[in-house]
């Protein structure tokens, strides 16, 4: 019994508008997922690459300024090519691009895990417990429902991709103390935005489509892992010199190809390669110490990091637009599946 039983009371509060009603679904979904300790642990582990990225950008900023703060670790930079040490500002966009792409490479992996933790329940549980009539008999459209559910995945994926990337970018800018930094690196920010949104859109739609295909969340998880891991394995097995299409079987490789295109990574790797090749002789004669201070006995030279396309024996690569096409096709298929499986109530019982 309630302590003070007032019976039914009328309510005279104000109801909100419809525009952001989907946010209610997103909020509820995020709240529910944050009760899962695996989700929280994955989110926490995703912080580490972000911290490393931030730390690198801070170091780079200090390195550009030849800051005295770096004096204790200056030996780490002594093996770098002279051209780079003399004018690091000329290479800032290159190293920022490489840092951000490495960051996104790791976050892509974490994102796949996070998606499989967060996504399977989203629609499948609603189908299992027949919650759709409860949603659609309220002032919600189907698009609100989809947006709300998509928002849950988006919230988590953007938390580990876009948000740390932007924060790291801001930190990097702050430590560069150079207004020209924005001019040199705005493409990095734009590519970060574009790639984060592509990953979120693609993974979100795909997971929602999978989630709508079964009332059993474990089956949905299996579908996702199948797409991700089986695709990767199949791609690896079928890879041969001269064959350009096997990477298209791998979902994450397709995402990576699009990312590399956005960041123009191949071009930046080429620059780094040229830089190190040019500085090879200088470096060989100028230093006998490795990055950890160990004597290299004259045989040390920083290996010029080859761009993936130039590696010996590397298979031919399909243009990135093919990968984008595969992602677009998967997205379109997801929308079709979703609209078919999550039907309105405009049907006979």
């Amino acid at each position: 019994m309630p302590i003070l039983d007032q019976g039914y009371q009328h309510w005279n509060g104000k109801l909100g508008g419809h525009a952001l009603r989907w946010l209610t679904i997103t909020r509820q979904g995020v709240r529910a997922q944050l009760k899962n300790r695996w989700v929280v642990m994955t989110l926490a582990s995703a912080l580490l690459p972000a911290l490393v990225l931030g730390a690198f950008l801070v170091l780079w900023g200090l390195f550009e300024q030849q800051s005295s703060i770096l004096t204790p670790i200056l030996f780490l930079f002594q093996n770098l090519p002279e051209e780079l040490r003399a004018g690091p500002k000329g290479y800032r966009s290159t190293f920022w691009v490489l840092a951000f792409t490495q960051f996104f490479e790791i976050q892509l992996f974490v994102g796949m895990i996070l998606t499989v933790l967060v996504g399977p329940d989203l629609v499948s549980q609603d189908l299992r417990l027949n919650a759709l009539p409860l949603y659609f008999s309220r002032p919600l459209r189907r698009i609100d429902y989809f947006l709300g559910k998509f928002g849950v995945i988006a919230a988590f994926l953007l938390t580990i991709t876009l948000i740390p990337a932007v924060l790291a970018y801001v930190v990097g800018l702050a430590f560069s103390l150079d207004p020209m930094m924005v001019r040199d690196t705005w493409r990095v920010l734009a590519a970060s935005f574009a790639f984060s949104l592509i990953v979120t859109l693609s993974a979100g739609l795909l997971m929602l489509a999978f989630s709508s295909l079964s009332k059993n969340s474990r089956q949905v998880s299996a579908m996702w892992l199948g797409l991700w891991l089986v695709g990767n394995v199949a791609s690896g097995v079928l890879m041969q010199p001269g064959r350009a299409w096997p990477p298209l079987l791998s979902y994450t490789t397709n995402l990576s190809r699009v990312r590399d295109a956005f960041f123009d990574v191949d071009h930046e790797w080429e620059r780094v390669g040229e830089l190190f090749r040019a500085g090879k002789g200088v470096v060989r004669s100028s230093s006998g110490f490795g990055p950890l201070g160990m004597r290299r006995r004259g045989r040390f030279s920083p290996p010029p990091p080859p761009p993936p396309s130039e590696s010996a024996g590397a298979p031919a690569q399909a243009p990135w637009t093919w990968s984008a096409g595969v992602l677009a096709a998967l997205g379109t298929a997801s929308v079709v599946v979703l609209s078919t499986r999550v039907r309105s109530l405009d049907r006979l019982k």
Partner: protein
Amino acid sequence: MLIELEDLTKTYGAITALAGLSTALPEGAVGLLGPNGAGKTTMIRSLLGLIAIDAGKGRVLGMDVVHQALAIRQAVGFVPEDDCLFPGVTGVQFVAYAGELVGMGARDALQRAHEVLDYVDLGEARYRSAESYSTGMKQRLKIASAIVHDPRLLILDEPTNGMDPVGRDEVLALCRDLSRAKGMNLLISSHLLPDVEAVCEYVVVLGKGRVLAQGRIAELKQAHDRQFELRVRGDQRRFAGLLAERGVRAEPVNDHLLVDLPPDSTVATLWETAESAAEQIRSMRPRRSTLEEVFLRALEEPS
């Protein structure tokens, strides 16, 4: 008027669910009767703007069902027939979430959720997972979630389906209280006539997608001028025999006789029979149709 529908037509392929349905329903508690496939659920979905109607127009609480569907769903509470739940929530979270989905602020929704859960007598179970509730509790939870924003109209689709007698009585008592004590308009769809009769004062009978009969239950249950329920002091069967000798058919039903006067007889015949047999007539009243008779008659009449 609470609801006005004009020539509402809805087809699903070759099946006509609503065939030019026209009606105007007054405020209060309205029962929507009809056999399976009569179009009750389709009509409710049309009222909520959940389906695209083929022809006709309608207004609910003065709002157009085609162009103001979202506004209608915001002003109306709906308790679906199906067993349906929001996953992974407790009772109070369920109701609060339902409130937020209609546009209540999170804090208002939570406070109001506690109030309505007390009202539907689920206060003790509010922190239990909704999935662990019994059928009756789930039904009351759905009602709580439908009234959380204090709607002007509450639509219940087969609210007592699959419930045990106790749970059914509880739900009907809730509906009666909402309608009579709280002034909420109700539209209750059911094929269980006693349920409708227990709550509603107005009824619409649907069949094959159109209105077969409608009106105040008290008026539909018309008094018969040649049929009476008659109670005597002595032996009912003996008195029935005496009436039969005078050409009046009388049939014992429970504690009274159901008397059917032939066209050439009047009530005086009954009094004369009693007087001659030294019998006392203790009560006599014209027989009224039951809602079941109204319903069956409506279904039998050619449309």
